């Protein structure tokens, strides 16, 4: 645990001593807040962050792969991965540490958006518990994307390929939960299969939590989803270390 924390802290420091965290963060927050305030801060509208949380998953689709592409690919390219492997930490601790750092960074970005609900609360009766639930859902959703992005980053040394692969796979995952696609799939796939396939998409669970219902099964889903990709990530690194 301590080792994981050390890796996480090292990784976080690396974010904040380089311009990445600031450029990436400012860009993401700028785009997200610019478009979401257009629909949320309207006189006479309902005090709600629905518009914000509708935009967020879509933006994460582009920004998370950009954040995670360098996590392993850069280490491999710079040749620091081998050095990392010599540290007295296990591969799992390395993977978890990097994952936690990325999630903490995204959580910090989400914290910076709290001004919007505070503004809404000041001018209308904002229902805070579902808003906090939506923030939790966003963090879980972002975590699942980070896990996928990290997995792709571990497979290649080219950051662009890692980013594109992550983006495509996340886009597919995102679309699997899209009701229109589900309807289309229903026309040529058995219903049970459509249900299984659509239940893979994190978007479906995100929507459910964001509307204000916290379901234990959704939390289990996110844990399993992240766990699977992080485990696969560790397996890839393990295989690479074994190959030398």
């Amino acid at each position, binding site marked *: 645990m301590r080792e994981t924390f050390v890796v996480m802290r090292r990784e976080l420091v690396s974010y904040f001593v380089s311009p990445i965290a*600031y450029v990436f963060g400012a860009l993401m927050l700028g785009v997200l807040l610019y478009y979401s305030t257009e629909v949320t801060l309207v006189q006479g509208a309902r005090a709600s962050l629905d518009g914000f949380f509708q935009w967020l998953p879509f933006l994460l689709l582009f920004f998370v792969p950009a954040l995670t592409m360098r996590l392993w690919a850069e280490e491999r390219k710079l040749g620091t991965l081998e050095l990392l492997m010599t540290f007295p930490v296990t591969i799992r601790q390395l993977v978890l540490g990097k994952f936690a750092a990325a999630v903490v960074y995204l959580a910090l970005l989400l914290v910076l958006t709290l001004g919007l609900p505070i503004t809404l609360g000041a001018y209308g*009766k904002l*229902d805070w518990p579902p808003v906090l639930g939506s923030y939790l859902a966003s963090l879980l959703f972002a975590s699942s994307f980070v896990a996928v992005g990290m997995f792709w980053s571990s497979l290649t040394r080219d950051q662009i390929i890692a980013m594109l692969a992550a983006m495509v796979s996340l886009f597919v995952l995102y679309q699997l939960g899209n009701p229109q696609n*589900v309807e289309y799939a*229903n026309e040529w796939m058995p219903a049970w299969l459509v249900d299984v396939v659509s239940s893979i998409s994190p978007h479906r669970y995100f929507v459910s939590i964001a*509307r204000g219902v916290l379901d234990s099964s959704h939390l289990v889903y996110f844990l399993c989803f992240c766990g699977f990709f992080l485990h696969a990530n560790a397996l890839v690194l393990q295989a690479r270390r074994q190959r030398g």
Partner: protein
Amino acid sequence: MLHTNLNLRSSSSAQRGAALAVVVHVVLLLAVLGQTVYLASRHRVRVDLTSEQLWSSSESTRTLLEKLDQRLVVEAYFSPQEKLPVTFRESRKWAESFLDELVQLGKGKVVLQRFDPNADDSVKKRAERVGVKPLQLTNSSTTSLSVDVHWQGLRLVYGGGKQKVLSQFLPSSSFVAEAMLTPAVKELVTVQRRKFGYMEWPVTAVGQQTPGGIGWNVLRSHEGISKRYEFQNLKDEDGALLPDDVDTLFLFRPKDLTDRQKYVLDQFVVRGGTLVAFVDAAEYAIGPQRTFSKIPLQLDATGSKQPFLGQLLHYGIEWKPKLVADMAQRAMSPRDPLQAPYEYFAAPQLDQFGRQRMVPIAYPYFFHPLPVDWKTSASELAKDASGKVDETAAASFRERFVAGMPSDEFLFQSFKNAGRGPGFYWPTWVGLREKAGGKPDLPPDVEGRVHLWSSPAALVEDPPQMVNPFGGARDAIQRNTEYAKFATKLRERMGNEPRLQVPLMVEVKGKFSSVFAGQDRPKRPSEIKEEEAKKAEAAVVDDPNTPEDESKQDGPPAPAKDDKKGKAADKPAVQEPPMRTTGDRPGRIVVVGDADFLRDDIVRGDLAQGGGPVSGSMAAPFFAQMLDWLAEDRDLVALQSRSATDRTLRFVADTGATAADARATEKALRDKTSMLRWSNVLLPTGLLTVLGFVVLIVRRAQKRSFLASLR
């Protein structure tokens, strides 16, 4: 060499083995995780985070299901979900979710039976026979056009006998599913309908072929109401006392009241009845032309000695038959300003493309009470033209002003949540009887309270002859000129008259004494006729010139002048109980200062095309909840109070100020919205950018000093 080959072969097979092991590992892991998620979905814990518990069933549903003493069978006529279009699939999800919850809460008393009418022709016929309606949806592609038939209706059967059909059950959330289903269950479990009496004095129909005028029947006969409550017309021309089994009587716009009718009402409240009156100080013609001109309305019938206003005053209610206007902009803003039908008043205007369209306009005679504590606006309202607060006036306002909906009664809960009361049209002042100084002056053993108030920007006046903001002008320019005059006049009055809040709904309860105590009991018309007949008979007998037997006279017999009179004279006098002068049981009187908002044409939306008013979406729930409130039926209270809380964003505070300068308000709003928006966008991004620059500069400095140290 051979050794090398063997090594290579064993190495590649080891790699293949390792790869296979990884694949098996991943597949097994996926299976385990998939199973975990599946099991978690079967044994889950669900927490509804919303403050109003919008995604959970309410106490109303639970209470009702606990009351079930017989089996409730829910027949769900649902075609397969996977065939439904995506827009309806969400609805199916909510329907299924709520039905499952209903079965669980029913603890064996609720049985769910599913049928697919598309799969079986006999089921389809049965669904049609019981009243379930299919959804016929057109499905078109580049090569074909078809109509798909889907089913999603319910039939509820209680105890094998009573049934209720929801022909299409298409909820948009679990909350809506409950709002549809729970009242239906309530209807089924209602054993005996509560009886209400009513008397109504129809509104003069203008430009319409409505025989007998416009009444208040639409709401009374609304399915959801008539299944639970029975209404009996008790307006008896002969003024019979009300039957004992009626404990609540509604008066819809009373007028031309005779002393006998007033006596009937008096005896009703003295014996402990509940009297609910929807009153108007004036009647204005609406009709297609919307002339808004006054139609004569007289409260007391000619010859009546006991004024109705005095009678109400005796019970502790002061009705000032004045017309009330509320100049607070928020009070006269319709619920949905952009959508027809128009709740208040919309007029045709030309848009920038020269097309005529209806635009809602501010008309202070149509407004609603607001659940605002007006004390908090005292300082704002006490500002003079220069913006300086008059502290004396502010202190006086703080003392006098009250909340717009001060009552905690469950009737008002959903309206408080919605942020507004029902809309009133040309309402009148109905408050408590007061002493000098404004303190209530109620009769002994009577308590009372005002439930609804206007904002402090109310204007009171004797009903004018015409309240048309356009003064009858036909073309747009004239209309604008007339409207400007109308608005200026009201604004001037606002500036000159003191700020006051007007009571709009009042309730008194307690043991009432009779207003007729010490007087002769007003007689029924039949009694008067009987007496007149007797007198006439006596006069004939006493007249010495009258021949003993007219039939013996020559010539044809004189025609009977009034045959009915003769019959009345033959009829034995109806024995009426003696007048009750004091009450032995507590009675209750509720007076609402408007009757228009419940009248048929306004509720039904007959005037929607002409630009309103249409009151249905607020008046119907008010009336329905009022019946529950009067009947003290709290079964559906939790359901009613679940209506969404008003979470409207208001960047520019409503202080009860007038709509004097709409442009200034709009500019202030625009500026504030823009400021809030940009501060929300720029603050976090700017913070990150500044931090980034600081880090960059520090890093550069560190680098420079490091390089300098190397030199």
